[in-house]
Structures are given as C-alpha cells and as structure tokens.
C-alpha cells in the first residue's frame, strides 16, 4: 500500500495492521452514485492484507465473474483467493424465498454463514460482506422484519467471533417511508456509515460524488466515545479511486 493513506482509509482507520475488527460498516448509496466501489476497495483491502483474513461474500447484485473482472483491475485475483480459501463466495442471485418460507430461507443462509465463520474464525479475521441488503429484502419478499432479524443474527457474530460486517444499502429507496425504516435500523447497528451522494451541482467528469464517513468511534478506549464525521469528494478510476477534499483541486 502506498505510504500516504487515502482519505477513505484514514477516515476508516484502515491500515495494514488494523482491520476493523468487530466493526459493522454500512455503505449507503443512491441511484446516481453507486457505492459499489467502496465495497470493491474494502474487499481488495481484506484479501490483499498480509494478515490471515477470510472474506465471506454474499452476492445479491452481481455474479462472481463480474466481481472477478472488477477486482482483477484493482490487482486482486478472486479466483486464486477462492482457491486459497480466503474468499468464500455465496452466489445468492437466484435466492428466492416463497411466501411461507422466508424465515426458513434466511435461516438456511444464516446457517451457512455461521458454519463458514465458525470454521474460519480460528486465528483469522473473518469479514462478512453483503453487497445489497435492498435486494436481500426483495429476495425475502419484502419482509423487513425477517431481514432485520437476519442482520441482528449476523451482528451477534461480530462479538462471538470478532468478525467484521460490511453491507450495502440503497438509501434513496426508503426516503419516502417514515416510521419503521430499514436504513434507520441499519444505521443503528452500524459503527461506521459511509454515504455516497451526488454533488448538489450534479455529476461531473472530474468529481463523481461525495462521501460522508461517520465513524462512531471505538468503545474500548476508556469509555471515550468520539464520533468523527469526514466529508470528501471522490473520482472513480479504473484501478483506483481518487479522494480529495473540496477545493483542494484546481
């Protein structure tokens, strides 16, 4: 990794040694600005870091070959990683839960995740990535309650096995709903929320949007709970992402 950490890594406290253990990261995006690049970045980070980390990837949005091609450009070969058992890929594109079997469908998925975590958690960092919670909701036939239960169950794994959870949610879907909304619940669960938005002035070729990173801080440091908000712009490129502060570019 290059010596000056990018603004995103800095905001996440992400480095060679610290791997977001026990944290829950939520990526929120909208139609105009997809947040997938953050997920790609994190996936690459976890797979390429020297420490023994295992990623359990639950794919709802894209098939494996798409991620493989994308990550190859970032310098990470998913096929090799899968063979090395550092990546466990669950292809959930065709997961369907019939009306009466939502619970059993999600329970089965959770069971698989649990097994995978249990096997790999010995002396290793396990990261669970869900690439589209909104599509998980569709797969669960719109049963938000079951999705939330599922997320809570996954959440318990962070304490039990010291693993990290990273999820993507399309936040603009829910903006009209008010009382009991998935984003609020997910934000409550999350320690770090990363939000991508278009600029107010629209999209441009040089600035693809802005990121807001809300880091709720760690609790284990003498009870001092300091949350940090960082805001910066980004430009996505083929093999990297350029982060910069507003006004820092001519």
């Amino acid at each position, binding site marked *: 990794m290059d010596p000056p950490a990018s603004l995103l890594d800095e905001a996440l406290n992400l480095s060679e040694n610290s791997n977001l253990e026990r944290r829950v990261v939520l990526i929120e995006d909208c*139609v105009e600005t*997809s947040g997938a690049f953050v997920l790609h970045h994190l996936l690459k980070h976890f797979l390429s870091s020297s420490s023994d980390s295992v990623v359990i990837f639950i794919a709802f949005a894209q098939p494996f070959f798409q991620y493989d091609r994308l990550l190859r450009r970032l310098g990470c070969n998913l096929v090799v990683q899968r063979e090395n058992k550092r990546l466990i890929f669950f292809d959930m594109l*065709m997961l369907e839960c019939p009306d009466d079997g939502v619970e059993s469908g999600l329970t089965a998925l959770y069971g698989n995740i649990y097994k995978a975590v249990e096997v790999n958690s010995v002396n290793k960092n396990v990261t669970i990535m869900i690439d589209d919670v909104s599509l998980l909701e*569709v797969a669960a036939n719109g049963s938000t309650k079951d999705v939330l239960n599922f997320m809570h169950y996954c959440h318990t794994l962070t304490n039990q096995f010291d693993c990290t959870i990273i999820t993507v949610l399309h936040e603009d879907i829910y903006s*009209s709903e008010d009382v009991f909304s998935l984003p609020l619940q997910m934000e409550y669960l999350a320690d770090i929320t990363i939000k991508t938005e278009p600029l107010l002035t629209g*999209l441009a070729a040089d600035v693809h949007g802005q990121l807001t990173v809300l880091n709720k801080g760690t609790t284990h440091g003498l009870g001092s709970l300091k949350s940090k908000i960082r805001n910066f712009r980004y430009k*996505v490129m083929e093999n990297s992402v350029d982060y910069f502060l507003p006004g820092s570019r001519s």
Partner: protein
Amino acid sequence: MFYLRKLIISEHLRGLLAYMAATKAPATKERKSSFSRNFSAPPESSVPGLKKGLNGTIFLSSGIPDLDEILGGGFHLGSLVMIMEDTEAPHHMLLLRNFMSQGLVHNQPVLYASPSKNPRDFLGTLPSILVSKDDKSRKTDSEPDLRIAWQYKKYHGENKPHFEEQDGKAEYCNDFDLKKPIEKHLIMENRVECVSLLDCPSLAGLRDSCSKFLSQIPRYDGKLTSAGRIAIQSFCAPQCEYYDKEWDMLSFIRSLKSMVRTSNAVAFLTFPASLVSSSVSKRLQHMADTLLSVKAIPDEDKELASLLTGYQDMLGLLSVQKVARFNTQVPVILDATTFSIKLQKRRSLVLECLNQAPVDGSSGSSYGTSGSCSGSSKTGALDF
C-alpha cells in the same frame, strides 16, 4: 456531371445489394469473438448486429443510431435496460419499436410481452428499414456524417467509424422508417414470441417463458453466434393482475436480471414510474443496468419554446439516467443527459442535444445584450 451521378447511383446499389446479401444469410459468417479481456480476435464484429465495446463487452444496437452513440455503442449484451415512461404519452413505444425491428433485421429471436390482449398485433406496427433514394449517406459509407445537422458534427465525429458499413456485412444499426411497416417475411422467418401480460396473473408464467426463451439462445462458448432480445412493454401497468403485488414484480425483475446477465440477450423493459410507489420505482431504477426516461413536451409551452432552438420539431425529451458499467467500476458521465427526440423527414428517429436559443436582446435580462457571452452553444444545460 452525368457520369458522377451514375457513379453515386451505382455505389448506392452496391451498398443495397451488399446489405441484402447480408440479411439473407447472416449466420454463414462466424468468426471468433470473445467475452474475455484478451483482444486476440479481430476487432470487427463477426455477427451482424453485435459489436465489441470497451472492457471486453459486446454491444447490441438499440435501433436508433443516435442512442447507440450516446450510450457509447449500444446496449451491453446481458444488460437490463429500463425506460421510465411518460404516462401521458407513448414515446417509449418509439424506442421499443426500433429496438424490436432492429432485432428482426438482424435475425435475432425476440420475445415481446405487453399488457394488450393480442400482443402479436403490435408486430404489424414495427417500422421497416429506411430506404430512401435521396438519403444515400447511410447506405453507402461515403459520408455518414451528413445525416446529423452539421453543427453537431464535432460532438459525434469520433465514434463514426463504428457505423460504417463493411463490405458484405449488414450494418450494425439501421435507420428505421416509422411510416412504413416492417416486411412480413422478417416476422415470419424469425422466432418471435408474444406474451400477453394479462394472461400472467402471478408472473410465474412470464418468468418461465423468459427463461425458456433465453435457454434456446445458444450459449456463449468461445464464439458468439447470436443474441436475443426481450422486450416488455409497460411492465407495471395497472390493468395487470399482479399490479398490487409489488414484491412479486420486484422479484421477477431481479430474477430476469440475473437470467439475462448470464445469457446472450438484452432485456428491454418499459414501466410507468409514476404509477408505482416511489420506493418500488427507486428499487427498479437501482436494478436497471441502463436507465432512460422519456417525456413528452407540452404543445404550447412558451417559456420552453423561447429557450430552445428547434422546439417546434421536438417530439419529446429523452434523459439518460444511468449507463451500464460492465467490467468496470468507473461511472459513465455524459456531457449532456437530456436529448430531444425528433423525426427526420417525418420518418426516422433522431436524438439531438438540446441547444439553447440565442438570447433575445429585448428580453431585458442582464446579459442579454452581450451576444458573445452566450454565443457558445450550451448543450445540455437544461436538465429536467
């Protein structure tokens, strides 16, 4: 002079003959093309109607040459294209017709679903290829730029070579004559399946027909032979029985997307965004790989008329909300996202950038008098 005209005519004829030969027997020419990133295969497309794009993707024409250019080559093979309809105007039908006609011209199997009782009747309204005697620019590859108004040449100049006809090969994208119905034999010879959405109370039937349709398209195995097109009109129309089952609709789209993704086909789907709840509409927009929206323009909008040049000729507006990004994480940012839909010679569909009308000096705006300030054409400054 006489000699020259003769030459042009003969050239025109040759182009026509070449075109006819190619449409008659398109499958005879098979050459290697590849999904993967190595570009060892020759760059030209081996199958008429398919074209290689960046990042090892393959394009399929939308049936509107200008739209192909805007999207950087056409629709990605394996993508889900969604059009948000204007509920008060049938502009999405224009796009749908051209999309289907282009498929038939290239002998690609087509699945069409619509909420009408007899969807097969719709095939009679598909446009046929534009063959006009004076419009030689398209057929012979002499000067393809002529078709677009000259002042737009600088915007469209770069991608032009793609559209040139190569000897003996059918064109990648044709102009269609909206006034002339498509030749019967194209419908008879090709595999065209029609499904009425009214007959699908639960969408399970539609899903089965889609998966059956896709399974019959030869899979990609080293060389590409053909591609299919799925066209679904007004998917969320209220007259369909499944209209109130939001989650069924969403899960159908989700499975359609994943089915299409692994096959050689493009799904083209229009839906009335204002008739479904905003969260469903947003979900659908998220699922779309390429997202467009069409809008009619009111007849007597004085304000808009004074703002845009060529307002009288406009049929409507097309906005590009999202362009598919396959095999890359870089978003496609277009110079302009809103285009005007126009009919050229009352026959063929063209898309043009919006052009701001010269500011009227008497309008009294502060910079109205200094013509040089606003003299440079501001394309796409208006975003609706």
